[in-house]
């Protein structure tokens, strides 16, 4: 690794990964859903180290070339880009704390660059978090930040998505690892750290390494009670927590059956396999979603060429995928629900930026309508935004879930990262629709977190044990 560095035409090409040219085909232990084709191709540009051969380009190569203002880029190349938006949330307080004197002297580079959403600890859980929120509001006022959303609007990624602030072909960076969610609408979106967000507030530009790409082709459609969450858990279980490290993951194939919300769920979890971005092409589903938010002339879709070269190509037959559960304490510790059915659950959690949208709450309500959750189990429901909450209210979903025994929380991130609300006790188990099940994630080192789809969590809330949603009548 890191061996293939060469300087050419005044640009650095550094290939951090030199995978073997062919990998052994493998079948996933859960069944035949993985089609037996797994080819690793190193980009010819880098492999030969000779003249740059013009050939098809990946999504990442095209977006970054455009943003860097050059005709083409190759994987490993470092480019300087000006992102279209910079997402920050409650960590804005720490970010501006790093650059106080510079903000006084130089100001913010562009008040339309940041998208600031207060969502991680809302409503404030302590004097300290309240003071942080206050500091953010004062900053927003002082610098006339255009895109500010106060506590209660929603989880940042859902808000960006709903407000049309991430659009096809955009580069969006955010000081949150799940910024990759906006690949659902064809944006190049990726997480960065707070310090980099601070520098971006001042300069508006940063460096990015052009990633290699992985092509994932989806075939067929999922069966009843199987959802996009199961698909992405299945893929992560297959390729591992670092299976797409540093890479741009492109989803190809039969995508017409995946709604924009389902695509969001899948792109959201891209980082759980290490991806830099996880992206879908722009099609009628994307355009219909965006039509109510922005004018079609306000974005330009970018997609990979047919003959683009990939580090790896994978195919999955969706019809073979079962409801999946990621078991403690790794997101890639994925098993079909049948293997873990019957495990007692203390708390069920439906929500988060992964699965707190209307379609998620709707499927939970279908399962729980007119029923009550098991006596020894708690159910937490957290709509991802006020918009989702209102839509769910209109459809009667909130009442169904509340009558079933659910506690309805305001939109926010608290339970997912153990900041507040829904913290677990030692020895407890939670079945959650979130994206991470790391040890200590929900505030307690001695607790266990299992991840699943909203259907599986709702079905399990009814029985109090992990339950296959296909076995529960609706």
């Amino acid at each position, binding site marked *: 690794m890191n061996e293939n560095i060469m300087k050419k035409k005044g640009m650095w090409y550094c290939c951090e990964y030199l995978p073997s040219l062919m990998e052994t085909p493998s079948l996933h232990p859960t069944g035949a859903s993985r089609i037996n084709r797994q080819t690793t191709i190193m980009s010819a540009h880098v492999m030969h180290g000779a003249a740059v051969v013009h050939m098809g380009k990946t999504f990442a190569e095209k977006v970054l070339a455009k943003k860097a203002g050059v005709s083409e880029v190759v994987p490993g190349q470092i480019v300087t880009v000006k992102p279209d938006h910079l997402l920050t949330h409650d960590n804005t307080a720490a970010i501006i704390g790093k650059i106080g004197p510079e903000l006084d002297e130089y100001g913010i580079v562009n008040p339309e660059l940041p998208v600031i959403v207060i969502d991680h600890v809302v409503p404030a859980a302590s004097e300290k978090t309240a003071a942080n929120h206050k500091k953010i509001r004062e900053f927003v006022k002082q610098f006339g930040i255009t895109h500010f959303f106060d506590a209660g609007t929603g989880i940042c990624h859902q808000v960006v998505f709903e407000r049309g602030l991430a659009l096809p072909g955009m580069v969006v960076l955010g000081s949150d690892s799940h910024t990759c969610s906006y690949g659902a609408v064809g944006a190049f979106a990726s997480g960065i750290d707070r310090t980099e967000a601070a520098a971006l507030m*001042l300069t508006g530009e940063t460096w990015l390494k052009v990633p290699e790409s992985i092509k994932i082709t989806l075939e067929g459609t999922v069966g009843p009670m199987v959802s996009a969450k199961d698909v992405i858990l299945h893929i992560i279980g297959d390729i591992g927590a670092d299976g797409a490290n540093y890479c741009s993951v492109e989803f190809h194939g039969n995508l017409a059956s995946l709604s924009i919300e389902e695509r969001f769920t899948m792109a959201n979890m891209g980082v759980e396999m290490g991806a830099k971005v996880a992206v879908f092409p722009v099609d009628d589903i994307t355009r219909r979603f965006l039509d109510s938010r922005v004018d079609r002339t306000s974005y330009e879709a970018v997609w990979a060429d047919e003959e683009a070269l990939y580090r790896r190509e994978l195919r999955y037959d969706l019809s073979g995928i079962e409801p999946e559960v990621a078991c403690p304490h790794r997101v890639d510790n994925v098993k079909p629900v049948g293997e873990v059915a019957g495990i007692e659950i203390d708390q069920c959690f439906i929500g988060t930026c992964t699965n707190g949208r209307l379609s998620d709450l709707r499927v939970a309500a279908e399962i729980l309508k007119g029923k009550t959750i098991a006596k020894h189990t708690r159910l937490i429901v957290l709509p991802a935004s006020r918009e989702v909450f209102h839509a769910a209210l209109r459809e009667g979903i909130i009442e169904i879930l509340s009558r079933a025994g659910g506690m309805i929380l305001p939109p926010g991130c608290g339970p997912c990262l153990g900041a507040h609300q829904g913290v677990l006790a030692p020895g407890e188990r939670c079945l959650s629709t979130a994206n*991470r099940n790391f040890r200590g994630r929900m505030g307690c*080192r001695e607790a266990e977190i299992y991840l699943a789809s909203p259907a599986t969590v709702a079905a399990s809330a009814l029985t109090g044990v992990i339950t296959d949603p296909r076995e529960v009548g609706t």
Partner: protein
Amino acid sequence: MRVWRYGDDINTDQLFPGKYTYTCATPEEIKPHLLEDLDPSFASEVREGDIIIAGKNFGCGSSREQPVVGLRAAGIRAIIAESFARIFYRAAINQGLILIECPGAVHAYREGDEILLDVERGELSVGGKRFTFPPLPEEILAIRRAGGLLPYTREKLREKRKSQE
């Protein structure tokens, strides 16, 4: 110098629990909680000049930078791993924490081995076995040389202002 040895896929929740993310930001606030859910002895026993050796995908998960800020403040000389998660890798560059991706060195290490490190020359010796690792691209070395991304950004802003005067 002590070597702290950890496995694959060490995530940032293990390096610094999420429940403190919005209450601890300074190195002093962060240090007592470093690796709290991974190795409870670490925070009290880590010393200036210590090295961490880990498997693949070190630093995966959340984009929180407290692990990097805390490990740098605790005096960690370098983290040598088979691979790093990308946000953690960027955060380390931005804070001036040295990360070395060198699977050979990770596999070669045995408890008690002496580790010698020459970052400038890209050389590493583990128990007498020599390994090399490539230098970072020039653009990124410039950030490290400046002492991290914020000092680098301050320099750039000053230069820009000067050129406009």
